[in-house]
């Protein structure tokens, strides 16, 4: 019997990690992820979670300790944000290249400079190509559920890849939301024990991390690419199973009134919920608009995205990160790339906004959609539109 309780999302995420019986937690504190690692430290100190908590001296060492731990076959978790994710950047491709299952919660926060502790997606975008599976959530319930799924996906014998679960800093980490925490017995049944196939063990010695001369590097990378691409099947199957057991179904691309809509707004993260209200209000005024929310960022859900926008004429993308000197929004670039070769080419209008913790209101979204429709009609001399800057 599960009840819905009001709990701070960070605490709920830490509780989810506890329910998954994480065994090694190596973490370094950084705003706004601190409540997650603090609560985990409490749980370990009280004996509620039987794990080793390594209070490392930097995020680089946090991820490195996770490498050692995952390689030994222990269930491994860490959390970070922004500058910490940037500092770990060297280690992230090593985790995926060496096929080590590590779960990381990222509290999305803007990258310096200037220093900002508030939410945006620039940190997520800076680690796009590191080979990690990446899932984005919009509210606390999704965060809890996807942490549980992340452990199952990462440790699956067919996957064995590290997984990031992205949740917006402050907007999610520091708010109290109504969340249903699953029963421990249900989680135990859903999550098998971690059985890494070739762990570091003196009974069966293996050598991990050799160097690849040019003659085999390409083969090694291709093997990794095939693996992350094929992991989508496992992710979908996991979400289906989760839906059956816990009653909440997740999809790589979440559709909100997008079937049949001529104009679609594409968003990621917690700001999507505000955007949904704007969509509702516009639809009440008989506007043919819908919303698509990206949940699975890597591996990129090409088919599901194309299917979701097939009836649309205009896709308006809101990015919470900017690719400086480039095409503006990383998500918009990827959406454009996914749709480029389609027989009927849609208009994609790219907006960059809500950077560094700035909010966009319901009215703001309605404005954005109107402006997007206008730009789709008349064209624009800009590669993308910056939303909300005071000129």
């Amino acid at each position, binding site marked *: 019997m599960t009840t819905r309780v009001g709990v701070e999302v960070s605490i709920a995420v830490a509780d989810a990690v506890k329910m998954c019986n994480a065994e090694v937690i190596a973490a370094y504190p950084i705003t706004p992820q601190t409540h997650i690692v603090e609560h985990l430290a409490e749980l370990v100190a009280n004996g509620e979670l039987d794990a080793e908590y390594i209070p490392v*001296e930097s995020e680089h060492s946090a991820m490195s300790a996770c*490498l050692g731990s*995952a390689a030994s076959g222990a269930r491994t978790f860490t959390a970070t944000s922004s500058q910490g994710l940037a500092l770990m950047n060297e280690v992230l491709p090593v985790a995926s290249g060496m096929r080590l299952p590590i779960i990381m919660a990222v509290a999305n926060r803007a990258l310096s400079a200037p220093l900002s502790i508030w939410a945006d997606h620039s940190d997520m975008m800076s680690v796009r190509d590191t080979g990690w599976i990446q899932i984005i959530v919009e509210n606390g319930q999704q965060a809890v559920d996807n942490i549980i799924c992340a452990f199952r996906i990462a440790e699956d014998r067919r996957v064995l890849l590290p997984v990031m679960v992205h949740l917006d800093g402050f907007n999610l980490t520091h708010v109290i939301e109504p969340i249903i925490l699953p029963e421990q017995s249900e989680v135990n049944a859903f999550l098998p024990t971690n059985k890494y196939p070739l762990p570091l063990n003196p009974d069966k010695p293996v050598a991990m991390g050799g160097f690849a001369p040019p003659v085999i590097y390409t083969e090694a990378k291709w093997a990794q690419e095939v693996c992350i691409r094929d992991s989508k099947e496992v992710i979908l199957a996991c979400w289906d199973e989760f839906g059956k057991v816990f009653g909440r179904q997740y999809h790589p691309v979440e559709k909100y009134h997008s079937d049949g809509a001529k104009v679609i707004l594409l968003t990621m993260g917690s700001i999507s919920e505000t955007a949904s209200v704007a969509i509702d209000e516009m639809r009440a005024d008989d506007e043919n608009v819908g919303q698509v929310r990206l949940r699975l960022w890597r591996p990129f859900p090409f088919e599901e995205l194309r299917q979701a926008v097939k009836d649309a004429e205009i896709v308006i993308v809101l990015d919470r990160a900017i690719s400086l000197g480039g095409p503006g929004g990383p998500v918009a670039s990827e959406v454009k790339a996914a749709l480029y070769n389609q027989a009927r080419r849609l208009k994609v209008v790219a907006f960059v906004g809500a950077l560094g913790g700035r909010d966009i209101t319901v009215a703001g979204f309605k404005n954005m959609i109107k402006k997007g429709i206008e730009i789709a009609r008349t064209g624009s001399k800009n590669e993308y539109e910056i939303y909300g800057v005071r000129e």
Partner: protein
Amino acid sequence: MEKYAVYVPRLVQKKEKFAPGHRACIGCGEALAIRLAFKALDNNIIVANATGCAEIFASQLPATSWHLPWIHTLFENTAAVASGVEAAYKVMRRKGRLVPENTKVVAIAGDGGTSDIGLQALSGALERGHDFTYICFDNEAYQNTGNQRSSATPFGAATTTSPLGKKSIGQFSWKKNMPEIAVAHNIPYVATACHSYPFDLMDKVAKAVATKGPAYVHILSVCPTGWRSATDTVIRLGRLAVETGVFPLYEVENGKYKMSLNLPKLRPVKDYLKQQGRFRHLSDDVIQKIQDRVEIEYQKLLEKANYGSKTTKRKSRAGAGKVPA
């Protein structure tokens, strides 16, 4: 040394944990030091290796030279990776998962990966008190990438990034004292060793691994390629480094210093320096400067070893004088 000049197969285990067929340079002191270090241990070990000579020459895919479980990830994080392995084994054992008993974690790195880029991770791991051993194989420069200077390069040595020139005599700073840094972390065991004193090295490595908590061993590994000396002088140079006081052999157990070798008089450093191409350019005053500094450092060490033992005679390996009961 007590075990000198006795039948080697009876004293040292036959099994090579580090297989021949590795790609170390001809006459590599580091390869020798690794071979010896692991001969002192059993097979119940997990090795975490930093990027460097030892890692590269043993791990060209798809083969490996190691007979032990081994992980290499990056250059500066060996101590952090070792911390992760140690913590994982601790919790898995506690939860009753199938892992062998008493598995020891050994982290190995070069001087660059220890005293420069790896210092943070090492300091963190030592401070947290993980039960592991960290062995630094010191060949006194970034030898794997072609002899660039590190903070462990001795004063006056010519390397490619501290070259000899009109405005430079080579390395401009004194060698960073890594064993002292390890001692400052209050760990139970710190030792220095050299492959030219193989039984001493093996004893120290075995002791370090058997110590509960963090242990640090700093092994001088002669590099004929980088030091510009003949390939067969590797053992001799190690002996000279110790006998001139440039690289003293000692142990620090729970803060108590103990010299491993009783040297009533130090040989002049010139004997050591002149055999290496990297020091050939040094003028007499620079050599004198080095001589003075080596003597001061050695004296400091002797004083630390004698600290608090005014009533006890210094134990002497050479057997001179009575050792108290």
